[in-house]
């Protein structure tokens, strides 16, 4: 199968048992594991969200992919090439977490500087820099030194330098960080544009609604280990299902229906969650009590709930290990 950028489809990122340990202590004899046996793939043309709380191992994974740090064991390949292949970086765009660039340069100068590493002609560089500045909404601030930029503006410069050379694979470390709602919307639009152009995008985030909205698949990493991977709807589907009933009920009839105590009231409407097997008896009771049923739907846990469930489980496990260690 061919995708829009003309390359053969296949995994854009292949990660095999990637582990990173950092030695610490006076003699570096102790080891802290930041990433433990991570194996996963990101397919060509998909938007992949890498989710996890702070310190979960997201940035460590991305830095390993970008060859900024070296694995203790395991390996990874980007676009079919090992991460140590520097030339492969011609096809990769990278936005570091909380990006910081040479503050004595203007945005246009920074982009022009980075463009020089892609062997572009002077005219092509100039045209691309102007186009990118416009694309990230910095066309009027392009001639101001970066030391005067806000965090959000630096994030935009970071995004511009990541996609300046029209890469096939774009890796973004917390691209929404530091952006206001307008900036986040613009970044989301850029990610969707890149997807439509056939690019593969991997981005890390802890802003779950963004991941839910943008990603074909997500991977959740907690405590350096991959806890789940799949489509956002699929990954949360493993939780037990509940049903939600939305209804109205006259004040005088409330005493006839004991389940009402469990419902939450908003204005003149009630919202009640019951287990899937209890939905029909509840509806029957509600009808007998004179209630008017407005809406019945299956409740799927959100990605956030799933995420919080994993984090809580990891913390409980860490606490148990600490107690048993004592």
């Amino acid at each position: 199968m061919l995708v829009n950028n003309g390359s053969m489809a296949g995994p854009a990122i292949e990660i095999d048992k990637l582990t990173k340990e950092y030695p610490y202590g006076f003699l570096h004899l102790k080891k802290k594991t930041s990433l433990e046996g991570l194996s996963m793939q990101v397919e060509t043309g998909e938007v992949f969200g890498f989710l996890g709380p702070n310190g979960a191992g997201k940035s460590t994974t991305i830095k390993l992919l970008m060859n900024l740090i070296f694995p203790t064991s395991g390996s990874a390949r980007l676009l079919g090439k090992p991460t140590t292949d520097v030339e492969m970086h011609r096809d990769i765009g990278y936005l570091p977490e909380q990006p910081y660039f040479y503050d004595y340069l203007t945005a246009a100068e920074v982009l022009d500087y980075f463009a020089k590493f892609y062997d572009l002609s002077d005219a092509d560089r100039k045209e691309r820099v102007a186009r990118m500045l416009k694309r990230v909404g910095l066309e009027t601030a392009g001639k101001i030194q970066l030391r005067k930029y806000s965090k959000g503006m630096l994030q935009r410069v970071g995004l511009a330098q990541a996609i300046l050379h029209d890469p096939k694979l774009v890796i973004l470390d917390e691209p929404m960080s530091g952006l206001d709602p307008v900036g986040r919307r613009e970044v989301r639009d850029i990610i969707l544009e890149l997807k439509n152009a056939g690019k593969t995008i991997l981005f890390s985030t802890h802003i779950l609604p963004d991941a839910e909205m943008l990603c074909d698949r997500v991977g959740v990493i907690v405590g350096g280990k991959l806890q789940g991977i799949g489509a956002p709807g699929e990954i949360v589907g493993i939780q037990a299902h509940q049903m939600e009933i939305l209804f109205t009920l006259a004040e005088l009839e409330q005493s006839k229906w004991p389940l009402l105590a469990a419902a939450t009231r908003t204005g003149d409407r009630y919202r009640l969650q019951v287990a899937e097997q209890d939905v029909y008896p509840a509806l029957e009771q509600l009808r007998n009590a004179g209630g008017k049923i407005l809406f019945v739907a299956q409740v799927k846990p959100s990605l956030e709930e799933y995420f919080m469930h994993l984090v809580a489980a990891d913390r409980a496990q860490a606490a148990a290990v600490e107690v048993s260690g004592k």
Partner: protein
Amino acid sequence: MTHLGAIGLNTFREAVRDRVLYNLVFFALLMMGAAVLVGQISIGIEEIVIVSLGLSAISFIGLLMAVFIGVGLVSKEMDKRTIYALLAKPVRRWEFLLGKFTGLVFTLAVNTLAMSAGLFLALVYVKHTLERPDAAVLIAIYFILLKLAIVVALALLFSCSTTSLLSILYCAGFYVAGSFVQQMRGLRSDLAGPVAAAIMRWLSYLLPNFENFNVTGLAAHGERIPGALILQNTLYAGLYCAVVLAAAAAIFSRRNFK
């Protein structure tokens, strides 16, 4: 070459925009003051005083720049995390180091040339003319630049492997020790003991021999500097820088950017 040029040019631009070249104002004031004063307090040795003072100032200012900026070349990029975006481009780590080295040596060359112009203006002011032996001053300046290139290479090596503060201390230590290489080689075993004398002798060959680059006395007296010394110093500085930069690149290529 394009990559080295881009990184080098950016390093130069950083020095210019961070107002590093403002030191030239200090040097200009020093030379103007010396030129005016020297005519009043010395008779017949104006040229010696001006050349000695000028070359010492060029060397000292250059040394400060080479050590402090040199140490910051890598550590600043890592501390500010600007290196992340750069190394994500098709840039090899040794290219980054060599580009930084080239950029700072170019900055030092521009700075040294500007100071040299000031020195020659002061010389013209006190002598009212320039003569052929004054060319020795140019060679002395060239030697200072070679010496500074070695210091920059050492600063890069240390900053790739340790903290900025320790790097500065190591550079200072190497510079001082490298200025006493002949004394280390001539240490008598009956005074220091045979083991200490042997260790000093070995060390003296590992350390950069900065003594060979100091021809201020010859230049101040307008004496001829042998062509063999020019060739020897050029080759020595080139080789020493290459070995030190290769070691720095080897260390840097294994560095994790946490």
